[in-house]
């Protein structure tokens, strides 16, 4: 049986933990709001980019000499997995669910006899994946020093990937991130970015009705050469923003349940503490009374 002092200490420590989790929850809530507005603000750009790309790609597709970034290398032997996770833990299953999706994909690809290469964005994903795929990880991109996520961060990652693609290090690139659906639901998502999957059915349907005959300045292939890397950066930027919002959402709900659990624990321990205290008083009274009676 723990002494009264032990119980008091234990309650105090749980209370201190509860204060921390409560504070973390509130910080995550504030950051979530900011991340969510950032993710929503970035949406129009990505949407317009998709339309323009679909228009041009619809025209160039099938033609010989289309850029490799658009049509792929024609092989699917080497897969590049770009796994985006958070830099910090304590956010529920956020990091592990993205990593699990990536790991399952990597295992499936390797079972099919493909080569798998991994680039980790974010330290947490690296920590998890390095246990099983240490020799597959070719690069780790650290965003810990980045305070507010900017387009330039995504651009840097995109440049690295394009450089590797041009050196024919891989054939297909897939991006792993967590899509932000709501505070309680974040969906780990895999998206193929090289070659990009375009909404082809839509472009063809649109082409059937009224095709705007675009003029291009400069030529289509020159525009594509600029547009494709930028599209890649935009996709990565969107993934990073969605990830940031998801991370804060996941952290908020994880810390909310941690605070609630701490509350339950405090309640239970206070009851034990009070019972023990009463038992001690009763015991002392009995000792005094029986001592007096003996006289």
């Amino acid at each position: 049986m723990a002494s009264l002092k032990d119980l008091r200490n234990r309650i105090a420590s749980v209370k201190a933990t509860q204060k921390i989790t409560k504070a973390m929850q509130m910080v995550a809530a504030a950051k979530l709001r900011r991340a969510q507005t950032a993710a929503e603000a970035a949406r129009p750009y990505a949407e317009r980019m998709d339309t323009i790309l679909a228009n041009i790609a619809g025209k160039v597709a099938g033609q010989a000499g289309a850029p490799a970034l658009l049509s792929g290398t024609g092989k699917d032997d080497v897969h590049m997995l770009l796994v985006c996770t958070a830099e910090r833990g304590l956010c529920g299953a956020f990091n592990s669910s993205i990593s699990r999706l990536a790991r399952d994909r990597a295992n499936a690809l390797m079972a099919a006899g493909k080569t798998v290469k991994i680039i980790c964005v974010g330290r947490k994903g690296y920590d998890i994946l390095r246990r099983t795929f240490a020799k597959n990880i070719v690069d780790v991109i650290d965003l810990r020093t980045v305070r507010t996520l900017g387009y330039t961060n995504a651009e840097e990652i995109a440049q690295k990937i394009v450089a590797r693609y041009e050196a024919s290090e891989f054939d297909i690139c897939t991006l792993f991130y967590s899509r932000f659906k709501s505070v309680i639901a974040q969906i780990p998502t895999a998206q193929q970015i090289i070659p990009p999957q375009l909404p082809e059915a839509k472009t063809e349907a649109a082409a059937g009705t009224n095709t705007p005959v675009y003029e291009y300045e400069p030529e289509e292939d020159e525009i594509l050469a600029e547009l494709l890397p930028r599209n890649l950066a935009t996709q990565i930027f969107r993934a990073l923003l969605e990830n940031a919002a998801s991370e804060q959402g996941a952290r908020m709900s994880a810390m909310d349940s941690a605070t609630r659990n701490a509350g339950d624990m405090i309640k239970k321990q206070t009851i034990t503490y009070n019972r023990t205290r009463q038992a001690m008083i009763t015991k002392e009274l009995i000792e005094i009374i029986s001592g007096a009676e003996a006289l």
Partner: protein
Amino acid sequence: MASFQFELVSPARLLFSGEVDEVIVPGAEGEFTVLANHAPLVSTLRPGILTVKAGGDVKRLYVRGGFAEISEKGLTILAEDATAVEDVNLTEFAASVSAYEAKLAQAPSDEARYKMAETLFQLRAVQAQLGGGGATAH
């Protein structure tokens, strides 16, 4: 004067959306003016100054590059970055130009060097325009 829909978006957010009369776009192959009912066009942009005229208002913005798309719905500009000319910090701009110059010195290939030299030239031109004050309309 007939007006048309104009949207200016950067990766971070939607910067402008509304009806305008005239937009002068710094296209990669020369500036062009967009009026209502312009033929569909897709163009890349070079670093330059974007002039937007709506009603009697004239707004001038510095854009660092991107794309312009003109369709029957109107003009959409996907800019990498856009700032109102009055808000451009000249010292910062000068610093970014000289940083670019330093990068040019260590370009990996002749082709890249040629491209970068062109961009540098355009940046210099913008710098001259910015330094010349907002009085020069074009």
